[in-house]
């Protein structure tokens, strides 16, 4: 694929629908994820990262603001086209009942008439052997599910990948392989990636671009190099922010 896609978030606000405690989940957020690049979405737990990803594939609509895919408002793109162009890897992987092969076949079927990846070699891509094809997907470990989920999303050859902490269930080695895979997909196909992560190290190893959010607001958006410099200057605050994020997870 030669086509590179830019995602632009413009003044997006999202409120929770809970009547008992109305809450602003995202507050006037704007940033751009450049075409063909990997953008890290950093921020502590509860910052609104997952909520933002959901908006990008239109699983929710923002209360205010707009989101653009290549200068086109995503609410003007037919939903099916959008969902196939934008692949979403959820923070908590959910398998469909049945085998891993069945899971991949569902994704193929949902591509309808579009060209999609065949199951051959797909698992290899996410560092799983082909023996996994006949395993019951719901019995896999979280880390294995995460990789099957990624494979399932890759089936439609999305031009944008939204990854919500794709390595959180993995050991260091497997995480590294996934990181390399993401890098490779990005380099080889020019797929734009938005990667949610708590790990500054992972972000700096992988991402070209960073958006830091906290409490639903954008704190900073920058090139990785500039961001690291800035982070060093205000090191104390950022470290506190990120370790707070990590503590809450543990």
């Amino acid at each position, binding site marked *: 694929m030669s086509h590179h896609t830019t995602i632009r978030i413009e003044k997006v606000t999202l409120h*929770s*629908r*809970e009547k008992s405690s109305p809450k602003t989940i995202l507050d006037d957020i704007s940033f751009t994820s450049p075409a063909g690049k990997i953008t890290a979405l950093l921020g502590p737990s509860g910052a609104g990262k997952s909520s933002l990803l959901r908006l990008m*594939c*239109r*699983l*929710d*609509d923002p209360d205010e603001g707009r989101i653009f895919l290549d200068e086109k408002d995503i*609410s003007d793109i037919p*939903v*099916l086209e959008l*969902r*196939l162009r934008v*692949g*979403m890897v*959820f923070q*908590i992987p*959910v398998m*469909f*009942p049945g085998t891993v092969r069945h899971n991949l076949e*569902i*994704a193929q079927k*949902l*591509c*309808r008439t579009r060209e999609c990846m065949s199951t051959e070699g797909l698992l290899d891509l996410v560092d799983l052997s082909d023996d996994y094809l006949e395993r019951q997907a719901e019995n896999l470990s979280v880390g294995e599910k995460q990789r099957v*989920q990624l494979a*399932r*999303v890759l*089936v*439609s050859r999305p031009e944008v990948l939204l990854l919500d902490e794709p390595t959180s269930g993995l050991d260091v080695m497997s995480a590294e392989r996934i990181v390399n895979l993401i890098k490779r997909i990005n380099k080889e196909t020019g797929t734009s990636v938005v990667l949610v992560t708590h790990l500054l190290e992972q972000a700096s190893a992988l991402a070209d671009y960073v958006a830091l959010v906290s409490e639903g607001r954008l704190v900073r958006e920058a090139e990785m190099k500039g961001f690291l410099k800035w982070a060093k200057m205000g090191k104390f605050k950022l470290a506190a922010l990120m370790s707070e994020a990590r503590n809450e997870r543990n």
Partner: protein
Amino acid sequence: MNVIEISLINLSLSLILVVASLVITFGMRLGLWKEILLGTVRTALQLFLAGLVLHYLFRWNLWYVTILLLLVMTAVASFESMRRQRRRNLKVFFIAFAAVICGTAFSLTVVTAIVIQVKPWYDPQYMIPIAGMIIGNSMSAASLVLNRLWGELSLRKGEVESYLALGAAPFEASRHATKEAIKAAMTPTINSMMIVGIVQFPGMMTGQIIAGQDPASAVRYQIMVMYMILAAATITATLTAVLGYRLFFTKAWQLKREMFS
């Protein structure tokens, strides 16, 4: 026929049964006494009224009055299905109404026109009580489906949204939920088919037998009734599910957030 008439005085003695129930619920502090009292009064009022209506209906014996009453019964049943939901709106009412009407029309036509061959076709003496049984069961089926649909979709929110994110349309993403909902709505009917005549003697058969009819003939009616309820429940449940899953999704193939928080 030699049915023993219940005089009004004797009928009032049946309140002993209500008092027994009240005493127990008071003792257990279940806080149900208001509902029991209301239910007792409503039962008496509604049934006396129904008796009165049927009395005139049979006397007039007019096809349009019969049809009108059937429509009113269906509307009330649909309203009741809607009332039993967490989210109530007019759409729920119309879905239930359409589903109950279809299930009822089919079963009622087969039973009265083909099996019993009622003459004239609208004879209220047959139409009304038989339709009453069908509509009552269809109503339960419709509310069970809507409840279960919501339950399945919120329980399997992750699965449903994984489907949607991969490009599935709502009907594909909710296929599992609609199937489960239809099954859940049909289960009571199927279960009752398994035990009828062994543990359970349905009201209609009991009534006919007390009224002095030959049990062998009453049984034939009951067999037909069971099959007719099965068909009505199946049709109503399926239609409710097929029309109802849309309630939980937006036009943009999203789960409606306000339904699930």
